[in-house]
């Protein structure tokens, strides 16, 4: 209860400040619309289906890109963590790509993949690949050698060691990677939609800016923030289910 109270103090203070600033018109309503106005616009966009349409398109793009990223980053991270040969083969190229921000590659991506869904999926893929790959790789690579030795003492094969020791030991790290990758996907999507799209929440914001509608821009920003928070919460709940052994303390 105390935590909930602490959680809502700052948002309420900011909302109050926003109300006061707009009530006394310290900024022009064309630059900063009031909370009431923003909520009315939100409700209108929700009722006519515009908001749901843009949000669902963006969400599908995020999930699609994130899924593709999982398909490549997870096995590659495991292989590089397990095998020095794989690591040495892939590392120079991956290290180079890691330092190139996905937004810097947008012109080339548009040139190669056009402005359809493929380019957006590619941007999301690039943005979410590295957090997931690096966390998977790190989780496998940094597996406690003492646990690996238990496998050796039981005469486990390389496959059994990977399957029953390294992979489960890497799960917490992989989940952190998934969580980060999801957040990065969302940010990259908005970037991609702001540049080349005819639908999605990023496009809705850009379109509103061109139509001088800061209220719609604010609705878009709030939706992104709230949806991102909800997805993260959902993910944390899932993490608790998958890692029941974590956070349990014993009395020695």
């Amino acid at each position: 209860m105390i935590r909930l109270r602490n959680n809502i103090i700052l948002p309420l203070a900011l909302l109050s400040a926003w109300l006061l600033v707009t009530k006394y018109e310290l900024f022009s309503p064309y630059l900063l619309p009031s909370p009431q106005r923003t909520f009315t616009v939100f409700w209108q966009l929700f009722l006519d289906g515009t908001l749901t349409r843009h949000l669902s398109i963006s969400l599908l793009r995020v999930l699609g890109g994130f899924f593709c990223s999982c398909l490549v980053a997870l096995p590659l991270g495991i292989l590089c963590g397990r095998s020095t040969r794989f690591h040495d083969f892939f590392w120079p190229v991956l290290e180079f790509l890691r330092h190139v921000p996905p937004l810097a590659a947008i012109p080339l991506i548009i040139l190669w993949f056009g402005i359809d869904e493929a380019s957006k999926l590619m941007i999301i893929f690039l943005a979410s690949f590295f957090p997931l790959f690096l966390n998977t790789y790190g989780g496998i690579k940094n597996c406690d050698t003492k646990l690996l030795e238990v496998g050796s003492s039981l005469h486990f094969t390389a496959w059994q060691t990977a399957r029953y020791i390294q992979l489960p030991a890497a799960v917490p790290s992989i989940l952190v990677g998934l969580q980060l990758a999801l957040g990065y996907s969302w940010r990259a999507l908005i970037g991609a939609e702001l540049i080349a799209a005819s639908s999605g929440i990023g496009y809705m914001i850009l379109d509103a800016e061109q139509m001088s509608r800061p209220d719609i821009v604010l609705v878009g920003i709030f939706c992104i923030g709230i949806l991102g928070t909800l997805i993260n919460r959902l993910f944390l709940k899932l993490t608790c289910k998958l890692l029941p052994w974590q956070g349990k303390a014993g009395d020695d």
Partner: protein
Amino acid sequence: MPIKIDALTKVYSTAEIKVTALAPTTLSFADHSFTTIVGKSGCGKTTLLRLLAGLEEATNGTVSFSTKKPEIGFVFQEPRLMPWLTVAENIAFAIRKGGLSTEKLPQLLDILGLSAFARSYPSELSGGMAQRTALGRTLFQNPDIILMDEPFGALDYFTRKGLQETLLDLFRLERKTIIFVTHDVEEAILLGERVLIMQKGAIIGDIPVKLTYPRDPAASEVLTLRRQILEGLESKNVKVVDES
């Protein structure tokens, strides 16, 4: 003789120095015997055990067994439990390599006093319970030879005593070949049928302990042996009685 080591040597080399962890050692361990190895820290007793388990490669020498490929179980100094598995799953961990069944798991949990904690995770266990789980994991493997590397070293007196009793009960029941490393002289005498004394990478004493179980730490025979071993650890004047 199920285990015979011949001129077994381990040297750790770096660019600057060479450290002989185990000087050339020739020794054998009888079938169904309980041998304890005692010595100061860094004297090479863990190295000897790890070489026997195949966890390290010898610089020289050989280890041979009477049976072609005996099942060897290893109990480490720390429990080394898989944090994502429950007590029961940790004990049955060896099932993953195949050829074992969970049939004897309830009995094992019962013997080790862990039935009530079967579904607990390692983070919820005390040090003693965790080490009992580790012992259970090795016993579940049903090994011919059990190698134990100071398994009770980090435990308090009462927990250690309880685990020593459990181990002796299991030894009398199943008569596995046990090689038990410890730095505690009293523990070595109370458990072993034979005590090997190690110093600076060499076996300097081999003392048979012909006392019945359970042994009283205050008994005069135990105290005499204790004095003899302690003198041996201080100097090299121990009479070697190699029964092999």
